């Protein structure tokens, strides 16, 4: 049932926000699976899509001059934290872009219907 995920905010405040975000998304979309497994699978997939969506928006906003740095960085097989930090610093107004990306993802998700 939506909303039944643990809400242990102390354990991981930031991810919990995403979970809540997705749960609200599902609720608004009237997606209410009755089994925990199904709901989790759906949320996992949606979370992955959200990541991709944000990533693409950030890459599109990466200035040309930073692209060379990005190329160099990619050659080093950086870990996730390095890449995240690089994008945070290198993409102008990255948080704004992130905000817009979130909003757009939600728009897209809520606009589609099965019928």
């Amino acid at each position, binding site marked *: 049932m939506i909303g039944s995920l643990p809400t242990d905010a102390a354990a*991981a405040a930031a*991810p919990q926000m995403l979970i809540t975000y997705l749960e*609200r998304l599902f609720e608004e979309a009237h997606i209410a699976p*009755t089994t925990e497994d199904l709901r989790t699978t759906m949320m996992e997939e949606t979370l992955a*899509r959200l990541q991709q969506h944000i990533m693409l928006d950030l890459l599109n906003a990466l200035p040309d001059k930073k692209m060379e740095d990005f190329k160099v*960085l990619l050659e080093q*097989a950086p870990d996730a934290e*390095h890449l995240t930090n690089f994008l945070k610093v290198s993409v102008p107004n990255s948080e704004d872009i992130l905000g817009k990306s979130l909003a757009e993802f939600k728009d*897209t998700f809520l606009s589609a219907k099965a019928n």
Partner: protein
Amino acid sequence: MPLELVHQPSAAEKTGDNQQPKQPDNFPLANISQDEVRRALGGPTTGETPRLAAEASPRLIGVDNKKLLGVDAAPLQLTQEKPAGLLPKPAGLRELPPPPTPPMMEGPPKAPQLEGPKKIDLKIVDISAVVEQLAHREAEEKLNEYLTSKQNGFFKKMFARMGESGLRYKFYREAKDAIVNNRNLMASIDARMKGQSDTKIAAGSELKSFAYLDEILKTYEDEITEDEEKGEAVHDPAVNQEVAAILMRYAQGKIPDRQAFDDEVERRVIRPHLGDKKFGADAAKGVNANNKSDKEGIMFATNLFKQAEGFKEDINKAIAEAVAEHGKENEEAVKEYVARSMSIDVQLGKKSRDLVNRFPEGQMGALEGVVEWVQGNKIANKFISPLTAGILASAAFNLGTRKLVTLGIIGTSAAFLGPLAAGALAAGAYAAIRKSAESKRDRGLEMRREASGLAVGDKKSERLREHNYDLLDGKQSVDSLKAMKGGELTAAQRTELLHVLGSLEIEKSNGIDLVSVGAEEGVELKTRLFTLNEMRREIKRVQSEMPQDEKFKEAFNSEKSEFVAAKLGEIESKDAGFRKYRWGEMAKAGLIGAAAGMAGGAIMHKLVEWSGPVLHDTSEYWSSVLGHVSPDKAAAVAILHEAPIGNGSVKLPDGVEFISDGKGHGVFMDNFGTHPMTKTFDLEPSGKIPDGVVDDLKANGFNFHSEITHVDGSEFSPELHSEVMDGGAHTFELPKGLAMQHMPDGTFSVVDGTGKVIESGIGLQPDGTLNSASTDLLKAHGWDLKSESFTDNQQLDKAGALAYFKQHGLLEQHGRIDYHANGTPLVHTADQYATPSGSRVDLIDTKDASGKLIKIPGLDIIKGHYVGSDGKELQLALVGKGTNHDLSVLEMAKSIVQGGAKNWDGTTDNKFGNIASHVVNKDVSGVLSTMRAHVYIGGEQPPNGHFIELPFNKTTGNVEWGSFKGLAFDAKGVMKATVEVAIDKEHVLATAVRHGDGSGIIEGIKSVTKLDPHKGIDIVKSVLDRPTPPPIDVAEAPVISTTEWVRSAPKRGAARGPRVTIPPGGIPPPIPMPIPTPREPSPGAKGPTETIRPKIVQNLGDDGPKKVSETGGARAKPENKLAGPPTVAGEIEKPKIPKAKIDAALSTAGLTGWAAETMAATEPVKSPEEAPKKEKPTVVPVVAAAEKPQEKTAATPDVAQAPKKEAPKKAEPKPEPPAKAKVEGIGDLSDPVAPEDLALAEKFKESADVMPVINYDNRTGALFKMRNLKPGQPMVLVITKSILRPQHYTAIEKAQGMAKPELSDDEKVKNLVTDIQKNARRLKLTPNIQIVRGDKLSGEKLTKAIDVARTAQAPEAAASVDSKLAA
């Protein structure tokens, strides 16, 4: 079984170029599509269409879902077996190492193993240019067939040549209609010189058409388009919604076939949501003549059906598996989830022609243009020929010499030979010019024929081909390109590559075809596209394999330039040869024409001699004139006639003529133009006749009154254009700049570019011609009218028939589920049988292998072949003679009664009584009001679940076929459709199965109505004298989601453009568009000249659907930052980032933590229990989370050497100085407001949430739209209750650096106004802003506000703008 999508390896992959790079250890975004990242990085995508393969994927074992989402700090370990996600994996997706833990998560790497997003790359391509190309080719081929056929005699061909341009246009129009109406690129015509040609749909043409469409789409999928063929990239939630719904409907079998699917895409996606988007880039002038096409939106091609086919099984399987595993109760949730998980990117395109040669377009000289006009004019082409040119010239010379002799300029001796010479000269010149035009056309035709693989035709064709350019054999070139491997080219290969590249470059720049294809492609499929695409793919590959160093590129491009120069030299040489040939042809034609003209001139001269007076010396006539003078002459003359003089006219008494050169230079003559009464003179610039001339007239006894009237001339263009209405049923020819509108009451109105209604209430007769009232009205207004109708029969195939049903609203749905042997469906829920005991029971289908069994509860299973659902056959009753049969429903009803209510199986027809009572009582109207006639034309047309109902004639009881008859009867008049009689939608009886195959002929009537303003003066007067008609005001749609198109009012103020409300999903009605070819207004002209700019105002109601994204509506993805694939036929380019590195980008960072931080800063986050109810969303600021991101910002890795930088802080909104722009409110809709005026804010305190809207949809849209704001143009700021969700709203605000979540609604409004004014200043604009508010915005309020905004222009603002512009 879990599903996984696989993809066809691309060429690059096959060659090993796409090797999987070494992946980093941690992959939080492990499932990101490589294609997506490549696209984001500007690199090539794999471009494959997803295919399904039922294949097991690894599953996740023992994973705690809570941990997966990072809720629990306990570590997660991925096993090799992963869970099957619900969604199929998109093409290009690779198996990647397991992703790491996002930075904010604790513990070792863990991540959900998901199947990734369902990404749909939808291509929507406007193929209007292709349709035009095909229609033009069809037209010229048909005409050529006629002109070269030995069956047609000399005179037939001669007359065809005389009207060649008109015939070609007729065939073009018919061919285009055939293609568009049947949605079949291979549709052709059975050309007829007179009357409407029939449409021909050859067997198999539908498949060929689909193949052609698919190849067009491959151009985009394989990214081998030309630059100008690519339009906007659209990412629009509204499009997402519609496409997802269509895919789901198709997956569930609710859309029967591709035609219906494409129809739905066009109706639900393209027309409503993409109409204002750019399908093609603007081609630079002169760069690519091929791209020129004034036609848009005629037909579209999309690749969605192909993708839908790929996903259909996938979606169904995913749903079925999820249901099997999680229970039926989850089916709806899964469906919703699957639909919402599709991410659709739309790339628009506008396909150029593939046969680029448009000769002789743009090659005709002025005189040849005249000939073209004559040949295209239905009347002129009947009379104007070299012979008649000679006769006319001779006649003119006769008259001219008479005047000249009269005036003493030439002697009488010249009057004898002159007409003969003039006739010969004119006829010879006309014949020569006509031949020149014909030669150019014939050359263009032969060039296209050769490029299409057509063999040489007659001798003329052979001679012309000597001047065709040398063409590359497309197939050979493709073979040669395929042989080029590894980037190392032999000298011969290098030369071949240069030839191919150079030829394609010239094709593009010069608009000529230099590559030929085989007849199997050029003739059978009417295109070169397949070969050209294959060439481009190979070129792309070869170029990517070639060395990439600058030195090599420079040398190669230099060689290519040399080849191009040499080829252009060859082309010029061929052109010179053709010019010589053409001059020779012209000389021959000129001599023959001159001989004919001389003969005509001689005849005319003789005729003049017989009928006209002999010329005399002028001196005799001076005395003669004087002899007529009498003091009372003027008073005696009562009848005046009007003669042109200069730009005006003069009324003259009978017997007085003004002989002039047409420019005001001339002389008044008496005795019907034989005796000069005055000296020759020129009109004064004002149009006044010189005083001396008037004195002469007075001296001759004429009381001459000169009345000069200045007229403005017609405000309408003398050039006409066609407006096709009602799906081609009615064509109106109107002056350019005027448009025809179909009004809700069924009449038509003529409007100009400003929306001014020029004519209204135009009604048509059933055959499409003007009714008498409209004819009288329009004639009274000065229009020169011509209105005629003609039959328009079209042969439709099954798809065409289906399209026809839809277009004419004939298709209706019911709940039928089954087909019986006779092709008629059974109503599952309504068919009841009365048992022998009298009780009624439902039928139950049992459907054995033959599908012909019906079980009736309580009875034994009945076996047999049923002709109807109840085992009885309807007696077909046709009335009429010969092949002209009508279907009599009344007679058929009687046959039912004769059969009795008892069925052959002993059951009773429970519907019988209803009909029988009417028939027995001879209540014809009762029968007809009860019964319905449904028609099935066979071939499963209409499709399952649908029926076609035709109306009855209420008097005769016969079915009114309308244009449908050709689908129900065959050529011999035998009925081939199965007919079903029903009560309401319930089946009663059906006839035996007929022999229809789903195709047939549609009998139609088309009309052409021409409104010619050649009496433009009267029209101007009429228009100016008439009061301005009231604006067309159509009632607003009763639905909440409406879009209103509101135009600016013309400057004259009184008139406001029509305001038409468009129902959702409907096609916007024709909006009076800016005059396409604005003419310079004549001095003093009163007609409006300003153009309009449509505004779109979203009508936002409390409950209105959110059709436009709150983040600014449709958003095109920003341009990619890295270079794309190598350009075709251009300079060699390579992606700036090596592919391996692009692949490495697939492993980019874990963003969930960052996203969550950002959400914390921008959104209220609550536990689900705290989630707001939808009815009253509230904004809950989260302060603690908002502070978090700054702490977690880490340094940039050293290698990247990116400067350390703090994440941007949220900008506090800074108060802006008071704006200078004028801000006004109106009446009771809003109060006057200044940025600092808190009174407005007070008004909004009652609203739970407020959404600022300006012109379009929201703040973002408003600010974006300001870029389009013109100096001095007013803005309308509409503020109404929010349809935005609060969290969205705050996210956008943050993105814009504007209001913060904790701001009150009042402050938000204030900030919005400030922001708008700030933007206005930045754009150097001072708009007059009108604010409208209301709990629910109505069209009336908005319209009023817009009107006020228009008229209440701030003078100082306008002055300011003017001064800026002047500076």
